[in-house]
């Protein structure tokens, strides 16, 4: 090993060749080669972790939405709120089977008018004959259990 060579590419003498991702013509400081060699591996986030992050984000936004619109007189005005729109936008990018359990769990913990979102996502309405809010929540949760979305 030395300066110059048959390939015409120059390496710093003490830096092992396999540390370099690509041939470098010039490496000004010897101390720097380690920082280049030990690059962080790209984070390998599993699908499970992704869903857990999505649920966390959903819960945060849902709480924000409920705090901001809880005293609104009309559901239409609640649905028109930017936080709800942002929530729907976020969920719309995910697959139905991932998103529905998140909404159903939220409905279980903090009941609110998630029925329209559920109807649109699942294209079904198990609560079409319910007589009041509580019954609608119960019908959706029963449906979620039957369809194995929640336990």
């Amino acid at each position, binding site marked *: 090993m030395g300066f110059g060579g048959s390939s015409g590419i120059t390496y710093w003498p003490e830096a092992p060749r396999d540390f370099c991702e690509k041939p470098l013509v010039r490496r000004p400081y010897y101390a720097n080669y380690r920082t280049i060699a030990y690059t962080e591996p790209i984070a390998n986030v599993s699908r499970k972790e992704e869903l857990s992050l999505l649920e966390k984000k959903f819960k945060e936004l849902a709480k924000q939405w409920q705090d901001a619109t809880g005293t609104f007189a009309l559901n*239409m005005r609640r649905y028109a709120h930017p936080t709800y729109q942002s929530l729907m936008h976020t969920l719309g990018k995910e697959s139905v089977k991932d998103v529905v359990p998140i909404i159903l769990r939220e409905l279980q913990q903090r009941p609110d008018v998630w029925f329209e979102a559920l109807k649109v996502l699942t294209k079904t309405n198990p609560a079409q004959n319910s*007589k009041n809010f509580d019954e609608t929540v119960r019908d959706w949760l029963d449906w979620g259990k039957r369809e194995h979305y929640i336990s």
Partner: protein
Amino acid sequence: MIGENGNIISLKMLPSHLERGFPKLRADGGKKTSEATNECNCVGWSASRTRSKWFEPQPTQPWEYWPKGIPEDYSLDSFIRVFEIRGYKRCATLDSSFEFLFKKVAIYAEFGIYGQPGWEFTHVADQLHSGAWTSKLGKDIDIQHNTPQSLEGNYGMEYGKIIQILKRRCWPWELIARICVRLSKAPHVK
């Protein structure tokens, strides 16, 4: 305290999130009168005194309700019509003072909340036989307050401004109830 239908109502302190959202409410004697419920909104509460109807111009759930014959367009006028078909007449002024022979409701509106120019309905409160006002705050609790002005404003959860006062003559039994409230000299009577 005895409510309009003879039922006992306990007046409780306002929850902190409502004190923050309606900063004038506490000074105006704002008190919680029931637990939060998703079953009814302010329109159902003030128009029908019901806890089981959520008035929504375009109902999406079986328990949501909108009176037949009133446009489902969410316009301010449609909400005023809900009260007009119940015998209320529009007042020329925004006088919300207590009139012994009349029951009043106050309609609140905010300008351009849906991104279009125009006053949009935000809330309605109605006057009790004692002269105090009652409001169901969306899906939250219902409250009692001394004047409808304490919910006005553009800070936090406030409902904009009172845009219309409507009133109707009291029914005979309502007059009897008002006399009883006066005679009882309850501390909440102004």
